[in-house]
């Protein structure tokens, strides 16, 4: 939950506490919020400090290793089937738009994990909000490996990374339209075919006893 | 000139018989080498059995069946290919193989055409295949084929020289370029006055033999020198666009030439068909068998290396040829010459 403070809840590991302290010292106001995810520190920074955060992580924290950059779409996915239709094929997620740890200002977020190859168990999870214009600062100038990850996020969510040398399609064909990982992008495989679990045992015409559950044995 | 089988027949008939024999022997040797080494020895070296079912006994029919299958296949030619050159290339490759067989003696009187410049001739016609390979690579209108063809040309030309130089030692010692003469020299030669095993030239020309084997390996474009084909890089190099019987030609060319080079090596360094204490008619019958055994021995070495080693890179290959093989070969010639004069 966005505003939960880590009191009495999960605690940071020693390394993560150090990471948090260093980030707070370096970034100051740029940190919007921080939280804990299973011992790791999650830091949400202002969008205009996104690249600076990477620089700080690399230079000051020794996090020289980029694990990944990705996007999140916090919008609840449209239901596959109407409620009450009995289709339970997809897990039922909450219907309202809620945000994960460290909160979010809106529907889209970019997040990344950086790690240190020199210090034991030192890593940081970084998040930043993506406004409606979908612009994010690129990390390519800091971590060379950000190239493909940002292309992926551009393709999957439509995020535009300012400063990225060439935002081209990575996985999908060049003429592909849409952003598949957005929650409102339909998963066709689940729509072209009826769910086989939906078919229920029908009583014989005139057989009576409709109320008895079919599954329960003696 | 001796008739082939001690029969008194006209030269026209002789020629026809000879042509048939050569035409038959090249695919046959290719089949034998392909079966024994490619299918069986390689399989066992890789801890497998190879084909076991076709033909009943250890899959002896497999290659024959493959050959027939190739003949039945559709003749595919790339749309952009230079059609005439494309079609001609496999024939050129196979032709060079056929021509080498002409001078290799399989017995005292069993040779298609004895030539006084036999060694020279054999090595010269064997390099004809370069032209075929280059034609194939160029005419396929495929980038992989082109790269393969150019690699092959560079490689075959580079290894022509050490191949020839490696043989010069033998020629110097035997004093003749006639392959039959060389065999006779080895059969009748004496080893420190003892004629028990004749005088196989490998005993003095072991450097030459090693060089010949390495260079032959490169000439045959076999690993560790198979860059023109380079399965993992160029897919199949100059052969990439060939299917059906045209591919079969390349296959026959490859293994037939392997046999020819093994036979050359056996003749030049191991005494060829000769067994020192067998002469006359017995040698006529024993000769081919002895030669065949020796060829298989040499071929075993070739294929053993082929199935064991990784391949060099093109520039490394050139470096080996020019920086190692050729200087060593020149040194060997010099040494042979000095010793020949001294003793």
């Amino acid at each position, binding site marked *: 939950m966005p505003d939960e403070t880590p009191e009495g809840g999960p605690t940071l590991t020693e390394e993560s506490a150090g990471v948090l302290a260093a980030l707070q010292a370096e970034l100051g106001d740029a940190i919007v919020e921080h939280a804990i995810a299973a011992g790791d520190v999650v830091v949400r920074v202002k969008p205009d400090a996104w690249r600076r955060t990477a620089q700080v992580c690399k230079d000051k924290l020794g996090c020289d290793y980029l694990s990944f950059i990705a996007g999140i779409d916090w919008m609840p996915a449209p239901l596959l089937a109407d409620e009450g239709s009995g289709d*339970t*094929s997809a897990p039922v997620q909450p219907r309202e738009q809620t945000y994960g740890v460290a909160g979010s200002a809106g529907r889209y977020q970019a997040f990344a994990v950086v790690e240190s190859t020199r210090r034991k168990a030192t890593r940081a999870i970084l998040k930043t909000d993506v406004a409606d214009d979908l612009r994010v600062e690129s990390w390519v100038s800091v971590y060379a490996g950000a190239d493909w990850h940002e292309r992926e996020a551009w393709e999957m969510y439509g995020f535009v990374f300012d400063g990225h040398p060439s935002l081209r399609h990575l996985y999908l064909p060049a003429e592909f339209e849409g952003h598949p990982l957005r929650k409102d992008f339909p998963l066709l495989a689940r729509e072209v*075919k009826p*769910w*086989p*679990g939906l*078919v*229920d*045992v*029908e*009583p*014989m015409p005139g*057989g*009576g*006893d409709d109320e*008895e559950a*079919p*599954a329960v*044995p003696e | 000139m001796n008739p082939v089988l001690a029969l008194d027949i006209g030269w026209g008939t002789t020629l026809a018989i000879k042509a048939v024999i050569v035409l038959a022997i090249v695919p046959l040797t290719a089949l034998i080498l392909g079966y024994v080494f490619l299918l069986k*020895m390689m*399989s*066992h*070296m*890789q*801890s*497998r*059995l190879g084909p*076991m079912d076709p033909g009943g006994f250890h899959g002896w029919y497999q290659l024959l069946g493959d050959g027939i299958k190739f003949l039945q296949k559709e003749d595919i030619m790339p749309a952009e290919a230079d059609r005439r050159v494309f079609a001609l290339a496999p024939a050129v490759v196979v032709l060079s193989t056929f021509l080498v067989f002409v001078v290799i003696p399989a017995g005292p009187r069993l040779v298609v055409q004895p030539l006084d410049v036999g060694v020279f001739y054999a090595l010269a016609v064997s390099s004809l295949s370069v032209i075929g390979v280059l034609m194939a690579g160029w005419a396929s209108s495929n980038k992989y084929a082109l790269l393969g063809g150019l690699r092959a040309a560079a490689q075959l030309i580079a290894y022509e020289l050490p191949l020839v130089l490696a043989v010069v030692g033998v020629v110097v010692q035997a004093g003749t370029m006639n392959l039959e003469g060389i065999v006779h020299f080895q059969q009748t030669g004496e080893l420190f006055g003892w004629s028990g095993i004749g005088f196989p030239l490998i005993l003095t020309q072991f450097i030459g033999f090693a060089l010949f084997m390495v260079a032959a390996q490169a000439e045959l474009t076999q690993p560790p020198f198979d860059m023109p084909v380079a399965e993992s890089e160029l897919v199949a190099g100059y052969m990439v666009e060939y299917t059906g019987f045209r591919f079969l030609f390349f296959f026959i060319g490859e293994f037939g030439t392997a046999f020819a080079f093994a036979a050359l090596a056996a003749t030049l360094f191991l005494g060829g068909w000769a067994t020192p204490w067998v002469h006359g008619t017995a040698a006529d019958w024993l000769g081919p068998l002895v030669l065949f055994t020796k060829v298989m021995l040499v071929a075993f070495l070739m294929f*053993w*290396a082929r*199935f*064991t*080693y990784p391949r060099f890179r093109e520039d490394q290959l050139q470096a080996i040829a020019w920086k190692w093989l050729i200087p060593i070969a020149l040194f060997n010639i010099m040494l042979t010459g000095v010793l020949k004069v001294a003793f």
Partner: protein
Amino acid sequence: MKREIKGMLTGLGVTFRTMTHRAVTVQYPHEREEPPTRARGVIALKEENCTVCMLCARSCPDWCIYIEGHKEQRPPRREGGKPRSVSVLDRFDIDYALCMYCGICVEVCPFDALFWSPEFEYSESRIAELLHDKDKLGEWMETVPEPEPLEQGAVVKGKK
């Protein structure tokens, strides 16, 4: 130079040694390897245990199980009891072209109607023919092995 020559020769030694050893190949149609007891070869159906509860079809990640059934009245077990209503299986198809062999259906089945069998020889030349019905699935019941004993230190569960 010495190291290079040695490196070249040891390689030749390895291949030669292998050549003199027995090959590991199993000549498949003539001789065959026995898959282990747990091998997930094919899913067999014990039809009489199935109550058409649809749990397997619902938990299948690939949606590859198709079940249809109907209810029937059966005479009561005891004298004077109510007539029972039982579910009868009409159709139980598994599309092996879609199946990922995860075994979730076997695990969720509450009535022990589905079993793994190590049987693997059921290839078809056409992909549509991989849809197998309940008769075919029933035939595979014969190939279902007894569960094997566990390694020492394992806690043997009471049930099953």
